[in-house]
């Protein structure tokens, strides 16, 4: 049996029945990694020894009668933006190339407690800035469905690793679509939880008011299982919400009868790939067929979301990235005579072009004389965008949109003009501005064999509704079972 092919819940069943050991599972996944990593390049760091040692520990504990929890012995990949004690966490940046955190992120701590096994750290756009993972300082992760195309980003390594069966599931971070868009482009499931649902402690900050950690999985059930492990209030994160925590797996009901699906007019306009649009309408028709009702809704400020997002995100990023200065950790230039030179050269040599561009943009947006025109203005428009969703959700339970206007694009296709790349985030960023949850699930393939993602948006702290719709759709389709030919 090819254990590496299985989902988390399938592996869990085998472990429970004693038909597989954690060591076998982890061993199988490493065999897969060794077979395809050369093509995919999903991992910045692979921690094989630690993973195998931990698997042996898990097996020993199971032998002694320790209970098998849903993630016991399950091998996961972690985006290299989440701090792992003793394992270098680079954010795919030269400036943190040799940075070894001295603490675990809260989600890592929780996953350890649940018995999960970490395979390594997944590649990403530097500091999560990008939509193609081309901005990694170390390597270009390939889309498992077409090695000439990007896996999406910024969590490209996490999504590609899941799609290529190089892990059972993974975690990414989503600031403007960085979990959902690569999930869509790689044909897997990706969830961005409500802002405040999952602790950000230990997630290296890009844009603090937008960032959330989210799972990337082979199916919707696994997504709910991973959410159960990481969601919840954390006293270390003031912005994590003290709200009742559901068992997300209980939302997995194959039934959407009477549910109202909002279809926003603004998301079905020019510029969208017709194949993508057709797949989305097909999915909507299937859900209607399964008993859901559709409602036409309007999100009138959608057109302003990209400008708003790039102002808020870059301003916060310019601040969050000020700490990389060669003093306390990370890279320091070899050639400096004094402090000012040290700062300027360290940051010049340590950051890549996109990161510098965003630091410049954000610094400018916050600087004297421009704060009101740019940053404050964007914060106000952000309010309008939030209100759009509040209004829309009076008329529907979830909102259905495409995840990305196109399927996976070719390397280099959008790197020339930064604005083109920014515009590809059009369907995902409003969700972060509003702080609401959204999931991307596979809903078809282009004629060229590239996966297409369906995005389902929910009300704040109602991940259950989107999981339910996603699960129902998945139970009635076969898209998630297709595997790339590697």
């Amino acid at each position, binding site marked *: 049996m090819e254990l590496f092919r299985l989902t988390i819940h399938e592996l869990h069943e085998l472990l429970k029945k004693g038909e597989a050991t954690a060591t076998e599972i982890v061993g199988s996944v490493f065999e897969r990694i060794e077979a395809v990593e050369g093509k995919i390049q999903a991992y910045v760091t692979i921690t094989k020894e630690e993973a195998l040692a931990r698997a042996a520990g898990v097996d020993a504990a199971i032998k002694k009668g320790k209970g098998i929890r849903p993630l016991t012995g399950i091998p996961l990949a972690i985006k290299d933006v989440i701090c792992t004690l003793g394992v270098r966490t680079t954010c795919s940046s030269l400036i943190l190339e040799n*940075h*070894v955190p*001295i603490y675990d992120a809260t989600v890592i701590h929780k996953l350890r407690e649940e018995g999960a096994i970490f395979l390594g750290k997944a590649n990403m756009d530097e500091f999560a800035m990008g939509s193609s993972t081309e901005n990694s300082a170390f390597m270009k992760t390939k889309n498992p469905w077409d090695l000439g195309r990007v896996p999406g980003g910024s969590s490209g390594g996490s999504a590609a690793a899941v799609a290529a069966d190089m892990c059972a599931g993974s975690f990414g971070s989503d600031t403007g679509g960085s979990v959902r868009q690569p999930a869509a482009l790689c044909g897997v499931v990706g969830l961005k939880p409500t*802002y*405040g649902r999952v602790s950000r402690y230990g997630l290296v900050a890009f844009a603090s*008011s937008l960032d959330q950690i989210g799972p990337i999985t082979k199916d919707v059930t696994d997504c709910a299982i991973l959410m159960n492990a990481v969601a919840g209030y954390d006293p270390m994160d003031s*912005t994590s*919400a*003290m709200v009742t925590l559901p068992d997300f797996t209980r939302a997995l009901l194959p039934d959407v009868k009477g549910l109202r699906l909002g279809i926003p007019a603004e998301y079905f306009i020019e510029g969208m790939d017709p194949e993508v649009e057709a797949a989305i309408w097909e999915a909507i028709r299937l859900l209607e067929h399964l008993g859901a009702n559709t409602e036409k809704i309007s999100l009138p400020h959608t*057109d*302003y979301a990209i*400008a*708003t997002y*790039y*102002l808020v995100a870059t301003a916060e990023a310019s601040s969050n990235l*000020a700490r990389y*200065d060669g*003093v*306390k*950790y*990370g*890279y*320091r230039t070899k050639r*400096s*005579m*004094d*402090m*000012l*030179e*040290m*700062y*300027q050269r360290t*940051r*010049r040599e340590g*950051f890549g072009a996109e990161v*510098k*561009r965003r*630091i*410049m*943009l954000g*610094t*400018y947006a916050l*600087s004297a004389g421009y704060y009101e025109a740019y940053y*404050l*203005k*964007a*914060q*106000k*428009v*952000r*309010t*309008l965008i*939030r209100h759009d969703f509040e209004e829309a959700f009076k008329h529907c339970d979830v909102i259905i949109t495409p995840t990305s206007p196109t399927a996976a694009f070719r390397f280099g296709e959008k790197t020339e*003009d*930064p*604005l083109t790349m*920014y515009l590809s985030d059009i369907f995902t960023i409003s969700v972060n501005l*509003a*702080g609401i949850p959204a999931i991307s699930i596979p809903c078809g393939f282009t004629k060229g064999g590239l996966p297409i993602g369906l995005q389902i948006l929910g009300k*704040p702290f109602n991940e259950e509704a989107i999981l339910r719709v996603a699960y129902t759709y998945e139970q009635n389709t076969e898209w998630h079972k297709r595997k790339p030919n590697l």
Partner: protein
Amino acid sequence: MKITKREVEHVARLARLELTEEEKERFTRELNSILTYFDKLNELNTEDVEPTSHVIPIVNVFREDEVRPSYPREEVLSNAPEEEEAFFKVPRILE
């Protein structure tokens, strides 16, 4: 012109980024195009709109004033580019 090369230089200095001539030119060009796109926001009247700093309606989150052990110094300094005698070491400061 939204932003001049001189302003780009000023912003780079604020952000402590050394830029090459080529980068200055390129950033001036790119930032101009991006900022022009951002002008879109001016189509909206936001006079009476409250800015959103946080999307969650929570206030007054505290921790109690309790001391927990600090980290061992070896760990704290383990990632330091340069250290000496228990301190982080930095080049001379002229400003």
